[in-house]
């Protein structure tokens, strides 16, 4: 078990270093860092001095190392566009993104698993067919279009829900400002959360359905029925548990995608999160922000991957044994 965790941790560090290398190259080679820091009137000599002072003439590895060391401390430099420390910018916007991602993740998981199980068990019912058809449209519908259409219906026509922003936020702790504790904050969250979660929901639903149909065909389910277990016990005790093993992995990974996809939703709903910040940085080639965002997303993915692995390990008893035996 311990060996397994250590191996996974080691792999995670390698991935982070690889992403750091990409980030660093971005930093170092996209545009001229000096040009974006100084004014037009700076002389060549001054530029050279600055170049030296910033360590831009050091060997590649030295520069890379100092980049990693600073990144590990959360220092990604100053945004070219906003002239503020990048980490400060990201931290101030992270709570908005995380709250949105969490709520839509929960929405996607609950409804995805629910619909998936329903359509697998009632394979030929009209409601299942309706859900499957709608889900196909859901997969084909670009996220931004879902958002725009939801705004049209619920904000413009029905005027039930706000169409942009986070509503009122209140501080929790030092730097976290939450919208979950105010009425307007919660109302503002509904449309973006549905927009962001819908695609993941259809994915989870289709995955659960396919896995469950597969599991329902297995011998141990047939045998469970032949033993006279109730439908409830067979479907939810046996089939669902076995379905969830692979589903957990993919669903966990989807959580990372949700954070990445929040770029789109945040733009549609003018949600003040890191995704919207990133889009701006791409438009204005604001390299420090792009590099930091890349590292942040990679970190989130790596952490989620790690958690998913451990969860997988906890759910499937076969892994526990084969791993520990295989190691001897």
């Amino acid at each position, binding site marked *: 078990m311990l060996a397994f965790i250590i191996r996974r941790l080691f792999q995670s560090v390698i991935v982070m270093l690889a992403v750091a290398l990409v980030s660093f190259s971005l930093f170092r080679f996209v545009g001229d860092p000096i040009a974006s820091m100084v004014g037009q009137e700076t002389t060549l000599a001054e530029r050279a001095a600055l170049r030296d002072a910033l360590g831009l003439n050091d060997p590649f590895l030295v520069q890379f190392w100092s980049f990693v060391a600073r990144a590990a401390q959360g220092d990604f430099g100053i945004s070219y566009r906003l002239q503020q420390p990048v980490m400060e910018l990201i931290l101030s916007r992270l709570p908005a993104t995380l709250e949105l991602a969490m709520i839509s993740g929960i929405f996607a998981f609950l409804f995805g698993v629910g619909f998936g199980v329903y359509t697998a068990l009632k394979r030929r019912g009209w409601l299942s067919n309706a859900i499957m058809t709608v889900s196909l449209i859901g997969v084909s519908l670009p996220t931004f279009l879902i958002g725009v259409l939801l705004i049209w219906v619920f904000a413009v026509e029905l005027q039930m829900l706000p169409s942009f922003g986070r509503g009122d936020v209140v501080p929790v702790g030092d730097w976290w400002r939450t919208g979950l504790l105010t009425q307007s904050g919660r109302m503002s969250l509904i449309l973006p959360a549905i927009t962001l979660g819908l695609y993941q929901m259809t994915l989870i639903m289709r995955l659960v359905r396919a896995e469950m149909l597969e599991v329902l065909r*297995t*011998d*141990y*389910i*047939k*045998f*469970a*029925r*032949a*033993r*006279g*277990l*109730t*439908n409830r*016990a067979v479907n939810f*005790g*046996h089939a669902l*548990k*076995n379905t969830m*093993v692979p589903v957990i992995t993919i669903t966990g990974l989807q959580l990372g995608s949700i954070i990445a996809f929040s770029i789109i939703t945040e733009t549609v709903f003018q949600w003040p999160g890191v995704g919207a910040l990133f889009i701006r940085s791409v438009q204005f080639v604001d390299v420090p922000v792009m590099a930091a965002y890349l590292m942040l997303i990679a970190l989130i993915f790596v952490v989620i991957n790690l958690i998913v692995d451990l969860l997988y390990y906890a*759910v*499937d*008893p*076969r892994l526990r*044994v*084969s791993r520990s035996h295989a190691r001897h």
Partner: protein
Amino acid sequence: MAEPLLSVRDLVVEFPTRKGVLRAIDKVSFDIAEGEVLGMVGESGAGKSITGTAIIGLIEPPGRIAGGEIWLKGKRIDNIAPEAMRRVRGRRIGMVFQDPLTSLNPLYTVAQQLIETIRSHLDVSEKEARARAVALLDRVGIPAAARRIDDYPHHFSGGMRQRVVIALALCAEPELVIADEPTTALDVSVQAQIIDVLKEICAERGAAVMLITHDMGVIAETADRVAVLYAGRLAEIGPVRDVIQKAEHPYTQGLMGSIPTLAQESDRLVQIPGSMPRLNAIPEGCAFNPRCEHAFERCFRERPDPLDRGTGRRVACWLYDRVGAGA
């Protein structure tokens, strides 16, 4: 004669497909008496397993029982409510599947699966169910049952797993066990042990067994009576010794010719020429007619129903319909 434990009457099972309806079982009738071991033999695709699945009411849609009746101790069970049928499964009819490696849910311990089954059918406490489960595992030959009961299926070897499966089939004390090729997936070395365990423990409890297999050797050693299926139809049924010593249906004769015996001096096994027709291409008349060396005009025209041949034997063959004309 006493009322049979299980009585299957003119069973028809059909599977609709894109190219028309397939009849997997076509008017099969047989009885199983209490405590009896009925062997059921036939080639792959002859309908042995489907017969077993039909009896416990688990034919997968769109397949369905399209005709006939199944009676268990004087009560029809082929048309009862799903919940009533569920109470029959496991409690009154147990089932053992072919592959022990895939019959057990890998995510639950043996104890969990046994206790769950016992408590689905019998009104006993968790503790009582566990005690019964341990005793049963011990009985089917799992060493250190009290400890190993909390292991997961993958901790057991194939033979041991099939013992667990037998324990699961028997744990709610059914009156009939349907064993569908219980040894096919196992090593030859443990096959005999598994059959012995199954036979002994059922005899102890007075449970009847329907043993589905394509191994005539196993039937000869284990069964009281044997039913031979061909292309979804019953070819012959009768006491095992009679059928083996003097098979009457030409197909059974062929089958018997294919068992190697030590006593047999001939150096080659008899093979039946040709192969069983596909279900969508069963010839008119007797299904066996293309491969039968005795076939005559009537065999191509009319389908033979099983004829009573006395001493509990029935044979579906026109050869025996002519008075005084034997084979």
